[in-house]
């Protein structure tokens, strides 16, 4: 497997090129900018036969993609943070209209206060829009999830847009080795988009109509059913990817050192790399600690997670987001709410740690401290609060 070294954003742009989108529309925003700059150059150089539609806002960028996909094209966009917030309405429309897309999210905190730094509040806040949400641990996975994302999103059993989420700066601005598939390999894996319905003057249809109370509930049901089918399609496509290219993505949760684990950490994204190093150190110190990493947040693989956590004594969730006001007197992030839901009825304690918000660095010793807190039964709180500035 040949590795090349490049910046995460450039690797993503090169992967997108190999997916052959026919329309690209995006608005630059830190830390996503390098991706769309690279794609603009790729299109201008004639290396990708796409219309690159420049727009004045993220709202228009995603709206252009809605039109492109409705007309039967494969489209692409990328954004983060405030840009994603500006797309809020279009995100719901795109999923409700069952238009498949891959959009890269270079995860970043939401203002106010203004922060350009990483956490996962932006995509998490679009949880209920109907999009698939996949989270990458490293740049190799970020790259591969674009190929997989298109294939799953465009599958007629799914027909939903997908966010491929990778941590802003921490991954997007990092140079590291990646294996880039050749165009021929991607073409063999990802055939051209075949829309189930499309806008065609010769055979007119209406899309995005209003639904009266007699129909709206059923539309939401069908979108939810598509999410549920996506669980199996993700496994199936991830398995095929592994068989072709040697990197298996059939598991929606990855278990690391879980065989005899008493304390299980649950997390998503790049924090999992640091967590694995922390686990290796704790294992040499005799602590039975493991990690269950979520690759998919939407659809949420509740059964897989439940199976992965069977037999542990306690669970510590690392949440790079906060659901403000949740949890009564305690603190809750969105991942912990899902984990508690998946484990409903079991007696395994699930403790949550709101960590790394707005770019606060997370080190190996922080993960060790979280495990120590969890063992002491202390959690459901912000981790690392600087009480002196409160």
């Amino acid at each position, binding site marked *: 497997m040949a590795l090349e070294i490049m910046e995460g954003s450039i690797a993503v742009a090169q992967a997108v090129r190999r997916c052959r989108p026919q329309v690209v529309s995006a608005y630059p925003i830190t830390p996503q900018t390098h991706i769309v700059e690279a794609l603009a150059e790729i299109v201008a150089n004639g290396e990708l036969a796409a219309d690159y539609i420049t727009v004045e806002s993220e709202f228009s960028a995603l709206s252009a993609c809605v039109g492109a996909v409705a007309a039967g094209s494969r489209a692409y966009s990328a954004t983060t943070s405030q840009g994603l917030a500006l797309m809020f309405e279009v995100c719901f429309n795109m999923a409700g209209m069952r238009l498949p897309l891959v959009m890269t999210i270079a995860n970043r905190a939401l203002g106010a206060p203004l922060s350009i730094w990483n956490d996962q509040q932006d995509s998490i806040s679009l949880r209920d829009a109907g999009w698939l949400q996949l989270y990458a641990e490293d740049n190799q996975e970020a790259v591969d999830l674009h190929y997989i994302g298109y294939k799953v999103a465009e599958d007629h059993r799914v027909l939903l847009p997908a966010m491929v989420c990778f941590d802003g700066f921490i991954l997007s*601005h990092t140079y590291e080795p990646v294996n880039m598939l050749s165009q021929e390999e991607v073409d063999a894996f990802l055939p051209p988009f075949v829309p189930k319905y499309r806008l065609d003057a010769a055979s007119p249809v209406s899309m995005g109509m209003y639904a009266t109370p007699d129909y709206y509930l059923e539309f939401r049901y069908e979108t939810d059913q598509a999410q549920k089918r996506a669980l199996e399609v993700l496994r199936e496509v991830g398995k095929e990817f592994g068989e072709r290219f040697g990197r298996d993505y059939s598991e929606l949760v990855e278990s690391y050192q879980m065989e005899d684990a008493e304390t299980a950490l649950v997390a998503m994204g790049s*924090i999992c790399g640091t967590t694995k190093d922390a686990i290796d150190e704790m294992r040499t110190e005799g602590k039975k600690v493991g990690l269950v990493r979520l690759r998919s947040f939407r659809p949420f693989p509740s059964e897989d997670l439940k199976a992965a956590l069977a037999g542990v004594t306690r669970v510590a969730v690392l949440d790079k987001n906060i659901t403000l006001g949740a949890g009564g007197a305690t603190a809750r992030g969105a991942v912990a709410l899902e984990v508690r839901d998946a484990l409903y009825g079991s007696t395994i304690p699930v403790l949550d740690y709101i960590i790394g918000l707005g770019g606060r660095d997370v*080190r190996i010793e922080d993960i060790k401290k979280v495990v120590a807190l969890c063992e002491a039964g202390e959690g459901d709180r912000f981790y690392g609060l600087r009480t002196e500035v409160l």
Partner: protein
Amino acid sequence: MQELRIHGRGGQGSVTAAELIAVAAFEGGKYVQAFPAFGVERRGAPVQAFVRFSDRPIRLRSQVYEPDFVIVQDPSLIRDVDVFKGMEAGGIAIINTERPIEHPVPAGVRVLTIDATTIALETLGLPITNTALMGAFAAATGMVSFETLVDALRHRFSGSLAEKNIETTRRAYDVMKAAAEAT
């Protein structure tokens, strides 16, 4: 795993130096990771960039706190920033300065100075010291070879800009090689 921290000021090419050193080390057979201290790109402001080197794939995503190696592009930074922070015995600090270092240095840390500004002015005509310090880093630490640095420079730059930077790197490499062997 070994770690490098580069201190510079915005506009001096610290992030580029980290990337090029990583590219060279990768070509030399190592797993690498290079990244900037995020969000401080203002020209003239103190900036940092980091490189990790390992024989295994690198999973760690935190910033670098206990570097084995430090490069300081601008001697005026030593007043403002604790450039030796986290360094331990056996570490190597490469500092662009024409004067001896008077700042206290952690025990066992080897400080190597080089007048990279003069080298850059003579070869590039600009006081941009990043490629000179890459050469000094290669000579002082052996973490990357001069040849792989040249390949990385040719990959990044073209034409006379590449050649001028290669010359800058080579001169600093030779100066540091002689200095490192003399001490």
